[in-house]
């Protein structure tokens, strides 16, 4: 079983304050963390590997510092790391990002399962998983809590508002996980030291290695600025006995006779 996990690195939100009046986000502490949903994907990949054998490759895309997050995943037990170092910021565009990641997955060789987070905490776009799956022509299992592989199929469980769905697809497949899907394991002290002292633990490529013509790197998204949602009017709180509340609710909704 060959598993590839796509990861992203984000600014640690605990180091930020949001000032509504100034319409600004202030960064007090510039520290970067592995995107929480991607961390779930790493844990899910390790669980599949531990059950079915095989190996886990971590693919990260971003500036040089993304190597840190790949090392974190390696210290949890992943087998290989591949970093695509992009200092230009072009990969902030989800279309560019997905194209480069799809190219990296192809470059990483044959695979059975691609996992990633179902959202990135900063932009909350939720686009990367589906876009990469389309580019690689893979079936996609989106926002699933667990993934297990049996013979040539992947089985996953997705929680919905009304219960759980069991979904399955033939391998190879791409699945995305929400940030609270599991409890990611801790790296071990020994692996942390090994991963940092081994200079070749993470292989580095540049976008040009994956996209020599530069075609994939042309952005499709244009930023139209930043804004806050308009504040909402507070709702009305209905009080009283159940009968009274029901009566008032029916009236408020204009359903009364």
């Amino acid at each position, binding site marked *: 079983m060959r598993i590839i996990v796509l990861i992203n690195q984000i600014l640690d939100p605990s180091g930020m304050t949001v000032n509504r009046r100034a319409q600004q986000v202030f960064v007090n502490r510039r520290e970067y963390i592995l995107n929480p949903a991607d961390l779930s994907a790493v844990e899910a990949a390790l669980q599949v590997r531990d059950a079915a054998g095989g190996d886990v490759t971590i693919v990260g895309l971003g500036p040089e510092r993304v190597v*840190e997050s790949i*090392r*974190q995943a390696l*210290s949890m037990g992943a087998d290989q790391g591949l970093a695509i170092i992009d200092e230009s910021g072009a990969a902030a565009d989800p279309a560019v990002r997905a194209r480069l990641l799809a190219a990296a997955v192809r470059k990483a060789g044959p695979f059975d399962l691609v996992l990633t987070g179902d959202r990135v905490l900063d932009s909350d776009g939720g686009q990367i998983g589906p876009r990469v799956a389309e580019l690689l022509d893979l079936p996609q299992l989106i926002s699933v809590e667990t993934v297990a592989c049996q013979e040539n199929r992947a089985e996953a469980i997705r929680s919905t508002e009304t219960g759980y769905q069991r979904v399955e697809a033939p391998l190879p497949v791409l699945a995305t996980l929400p940030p609270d899907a599991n*409890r990611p394991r*801790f*790296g*071990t*002290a*020994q*692996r*942390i*030291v090994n*991963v*940092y*002292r081994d200079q070749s633990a993470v292989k580095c490529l540049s976008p040009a290695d994956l996209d020599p013509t530069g075609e994939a790197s042309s952005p499709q998204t244009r930023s139209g600025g930043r804004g806050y949602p308009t504040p909402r009017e507070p709702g009305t709180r209905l009080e009283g006995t159940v009968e009274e509340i029901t009566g008032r609710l029916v009236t408020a909704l204009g359903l009364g006779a």
Partner: protein
Amino acid sequence: MDFSLPPEYHALRRMVRDFCERELRPVIRQMDHEEYTPMDIVSKAAAAGFMGVPFPKKYGGAGAGEIGYCVLMQELARWDASFSTIIGAHVGIGAMPIYIDGSEELKEKYLTRLAKGELLAAFALTEAGAGSDAAGIRMSAVREGDSYFLDGSKMWITNGPIADIIVVLANTDATLGPRGGQTCFVVEKEWDGFSVGAAEHKMGLHGSPTSVLNFDGVRVPQENVLGQVGLGFVTFMRTLDLGRITIGAAGLGGAERALEWSLRWARARQQFGQAIAHNQSVHFMLADMATETEALRSLVYRTAWMVDNHMPFTKEAGMCKLFGSEVSSRCCDRAVQIHGALGISRDFPGERAYRDARISEIFEGTNEIQRIVIASELLQQEGVRIRP
């Protein structure tokens, strides 16, 4: 000159911090209120490799040296000094003597399992009549054939009730005393004649179990002599030298946390129409806490660096223990003062930290003994030899 820590130590710190937030934090109150030792969390710490941080990889460790071990202890003590004491007594003084003076056979038999946390260790020196006067122990080891028979009692043994193996010092020739007459042994808890006595009820460190250990004719095979017969006192003193640095590291964690609590409360607490952070009296306390904490950080990490670079460090280690324990106590005291009445409430974690900090001025050589160690080293450089 480069004062930055290499990135692996930052990664180690981040992992230990995550561990503490997720695993340790939920049980800290219970540990303090119920004198509860969370053995499940100790096992999880072992799985994360905490027990092998300073030891080389060939013995199942992480190979992170004394610096890595200081990072571990600092972060653990930021959250809970009881938990850092359990780990410190196991790694720093329980397993460490086997690493520094044990035979290859002993290392293979015990150190690899201790470094993986499959076994827990304790270090047994103190007796009813031998505390600061460590050489005055009464416990005896009598040789018969290939074995030694140990008789006596040890007191105030951290990890005593939970240890699987005990590294213990006994007199093999009472007439020679510490210079040739004391020997270090590795004892397994299952051996006949060994028993754990009553647990102590302490002012702080409620989660870290402490007890009497009784040795009633315990037979120890001669392979379990640690180091050379007659030179056990030296092994014990070398172990304590190293242990003193990590008491400084743990003090650093405690002091940092006390400062964090104080900064937060100074911003939040309103008196006389403004936050108490605007009061000069509070500024003075915060400034002193921060200054002492930074001085301690430099001392601890430089001393750890000296150890990892094979330089003599006895004097500096004494300073780490002395200054670390005093800074942590002073910072906790000021944190309580800044918090006012809340400072003595059991709802405030600084109240526990204040009680927990006090013992570090006493254990592993009282601060008075540390001053003697430091002064002896200073005077020895001047050609004056001090005999305690």
